[in-house]
């Protein structure tokens, strides 16, 4: 469990970090918390030439209020996310999902931005970010740009953060109206990755579901929105039957993988059940 030799840089500003990445050679890895990078390096499944450690970079931690959105610094740890009052008020779904990530020790070191850029399809936060229409602020040699969640997750372990880029913060729009949320995670033991999970946010109005947003974890190479379910729920009666009928469409368009924990058809079945449960809980049924 000893990684292959690598160069190590520990910048203190974003500018220095970008320079370190630019100078780091062919294969540079950014260390945000090490939740995934350290294990794969120790197993020598990854052997980067340079590791750029963001741990000392100023200004990337914490959550702030920015009017119509809250802004979460990329290096905010999972445990800080779970304790943050702004997230609890405006995006409790993030805190709930983060509480299911790995174990206490990992949540103490792992970071919000790191988990999103790693974009593991079984990771819990990408589907949540997608469901909440988060926006990703990326800096790079070409300057600063903002990418919507719908364009951020490009492919398996691949995001819009290009070589030489750095994710610095994530903007989560404040929702207006009466929203309630639920992250329904299915795994075999407490610290495990999701076999399938569903992030649901539901706005109720006059006994009906006015609007629903649903993100799916581990139902394909990237997190997915269950658009067909969202459409079926929009304006539907807030009844168990209506919700169940809508959630039957949760697996449409998904391409889950098969592994030791679940074959693809079982994952598709789980997606329907878990979507129904997440939506029902969020809708107060």
């Amino acid at each position, binding site marked *: 469990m000893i990684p292959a030799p690598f160069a190590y840089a520990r910048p203190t500003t974003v500018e220095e970090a970008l320079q370190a990445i630019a100078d780091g050679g062919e294969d540079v890895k950014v260390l945000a918390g090490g939740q995934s990078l350290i294990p794969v390096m120790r197993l020598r499944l990854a052997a980067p030439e340079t590791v750029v450690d963001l741990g000392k970079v100023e200004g990337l931690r914490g959550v702030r209020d920015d009017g119509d959105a809250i802004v979460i610094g990329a290096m905010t740890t999972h445990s800080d996310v779970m304790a943050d009052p702004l997230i609890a008020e405006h995006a409790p779904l993030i805190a709930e999902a983060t509480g299911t990530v790995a174990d206490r020790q990992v949540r103490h070191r792992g970071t919000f931005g790191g988990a999103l850029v790693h974009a593991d399809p079984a990771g819990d936060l990408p589907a949540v970010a997608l469901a909440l229409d988060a926006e990703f602020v990326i800096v790079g040699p070409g300057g600063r740009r903002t990418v919507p969640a719908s364009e951020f997750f490009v492919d398996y372990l691949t995001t819009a953060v290009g070589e030489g880029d750095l994710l610095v913060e994530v903007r989560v729009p404040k929702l207006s109206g009466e929203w309630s949320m639920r992250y329904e995670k299915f795994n075999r033991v407490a610290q495990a990755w999701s076999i399938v999970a569903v992030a649901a946010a539901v706005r109720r109005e006059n006994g009906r579901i006015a609007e629903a947003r649903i993100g799916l974890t581990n139902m394909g190479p990237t997190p997915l929105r269950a658009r067909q379910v969202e459409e079926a729920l929009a304006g539907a009666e807030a009844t168990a039957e209506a919700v169940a009928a809508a959630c039957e469409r949760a697996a449409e368009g998904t391409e889950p993988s098969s592994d030791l924990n679940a074959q693809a058809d*079982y994952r598709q079945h789980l997606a329907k059940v878990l979507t129904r449960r997440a939506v029902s809980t969020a809708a107060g049924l």
Partner: protein
Amino acid sequence: MTAVEDRAGTAAAPEKEIGRARRRKEDARLITGRTTWTDNMVLPGMLHLAVVRSPVAHARITSVDVSAAREAPGVVAVFTGKDLAEEQGSLPCAWPVTPDMVNPGHPSIAVDQVNHVGEAVAVIVARSKAAAQDAVELADIDYEPLPVVLDMEQAVQDGADLVHDHLESNTSYHFVFDAGEMGTGGDTEQAFSGADVVVSRRFVQQRLIPAFMEPRSVVVQPQGDNYTMWSATQIPHILRVMAAMVTGIPEHKLRVIAPDVGGGFGGKLQVNPEEILCLLIARRLGKPVKWTETRSESLMTAHHGRDQVQFVDVAADREGNIKGLRVRLLADMGAYLRLITPGVPALGAFMYPGIYKFPAYRFECDGVFTNKVPTDAYRGAGRPEATFAIERIMDELAVELGMDPLELRRKNWIDAAEFPFTTVAGLAYDSGDYESATQQALELLGYDELREEQRRRRESGDPVQLGIGISTFTEMCGLAPSRVLGSLAFGAGGWEHASIRMLPTGKVEVVTGSTPHGQGHETAWSQLVADSLGVPFEDVEVLHGDTAISSRGLDTYGSRSLVVGGSAVVKAADKVIAKARKIAAHLLEASEDDLEFEGGKFSVRGTPGTGLGIQEIALAIFAAHDYPEGIEPSIDAEATFDPENFSFPHGTHLCAMEVDTDTGFVKIRKYACVDDVGTIVNPLIVEGQVHGGLAQGIAQALYEEAVYDADGNLTTGTFVDYLVPSAADLPHFDTGNTVHAAPGNPIGAKGVGEAGCIASTPAVVNAALDAVRHLGVTDIRMPLTPERVWRAIHQGGDGGDRATAGSNAYGGAQTETTAGVATDASSLGGDR
């Protein structure tokens, strides 16, 4: 103040240590890590080893080029199989279960052929661990693939591909126990041919990984022609004998030390290839060497457990009276026979009849070679498999007969009045009362209310169904009577040794041959000695694990330590008292016969106020100024205890299980167990052993499975895929005890180390099946993954094989299991 008063108040009758829930005196150093684990050892000039391992399951080695590795920075030497072929001998197998058992021999390092993934093919020796590990990837080894043999049922067919092509088949041995032939029961075929009802099942005991907390680690220091080996082992004494025989280092020139060892569960009851390699290389180089495995190496190459296919038939009449039991096993040996590989299923042979009065019984087992890492002892070793089979088939028989599973058991179990009872397997069960343990367990569970809830859930078609599983078990513990082991062709005895040294200040050193690796021997032995000698608990120090200090011993496994090792301690204490009595009589000027010994003090009967404490005698005999003629000036003593029979803990375990029929997720609602482990020396340790055992037994039922892919790669190569449950995944345990002292040892203890692990697995599986049997489910393969449960409910069958293509080791990130293996793929960077 209160404490002082309490002490004063009880001075007349000091509290007995036996039965006290003492916190373990060794825990502070073990938990904080402020102790010497083998990997903490640093010796001047010490070199570090890293092992180049085969990435393929079965192949001829066509070329080995280690020139680049030899040139790597920090590398001192590289050894290949050819370099060590002449001196490596074969790793020992101590249990030839049949006279004609085939043992292909087990090299520590492969020479021309590899037979499982992870087998050593070269060893790098470097000045640092990192340098050694870096050089692993520079070793260039070519393999010519051979057909991979993985499935036992295929491997035993005529014309099957062979693991060892110099052997005639993949079968190592055919072991038979037939009660009719042995005279312990009737004719089995006759019992079956005349039976009203025969129920037959095939059960799969999946392969498990012991997953001890501390990875294996070895340090060897050569000094002249003497060698000291530190190893994270359960068995320093056995290892010394075996390593001497394998390497030719004379036994008296080899000292083996097991410092504090972090768990074993049978996984460190082994003579490991790397232990031999460290000795050979230290001898070659004349320098101290260390090897510590990575977790990946541990999961891939340390021996595994279980892996049997069980064909079980039970015969009964319509009233539920059992008539016969027939068991046929295929037991996966893996690629080689290690220390007791073939003996594990054979040991189980005697436990299949369980607590029941079978009139006829026949057991057959084939040991089968496959291209997987060898199997060997794992917590329970043969007995969990047996208990699972009998407790599962009793439930199946109850279903067939339309009887309550508890009633069927009651009708056939040994009644309390029938002890001692000789079973159809020829074992003499010592003591117990199955009915009272069962009654207590039913109350702890709240059985009647849960049955009522189960009925309601069934009637309403609740998506979450409830089931109750029963396991009424016994096991043979206290390994073992040496003569019985001899009759089973085991290569050693089963006695245990202890000595007691009385120090001048009255403190006591207890030397035990039963080497702990986390069980709490230091605490329990201190309690035994405190009661025997009447000295304070704190005045006792327990020494162990070093063959130079504890020269005789047979170590810790098979729930033997307290039963056998603790008995040796008690016997040694008796001898100390007997020796001290002569000196006390001399100093008190009284006849020995007039002395009584109580609370650590000799006094003259009928003469209050006189007296001499045993700790004072220790000082007096150290000075040796005044002692009787004709005796030696010492009250130290030693004892060896060889039990005449096994001990037989028993108990009733009940599991209430919720099954979510929508997802297949199973959740233990309540777990209650009542164990009879004989006399309890320390209730806290007993409780801890039961909890840990339950966790491991439940883990077999629900979580753990070592899965190989079609090429023989271990897919479950990390703890992300090999699921070991934590406290967060396990329920509260409601535990209780009945106490029927074991008649076969002076303590009355029966052994508790394996009870929870043996009893729980069938209780959990029976519970899940009870929850969904009305939906048409008759079996679900272990572990009961949600997917298997869901498929069994909705598609029929037993849930089937798991998909093994790739692994989800890093969440959705598919990885190959090449960790620790030198291949092009393992050094790839890429986007992971």
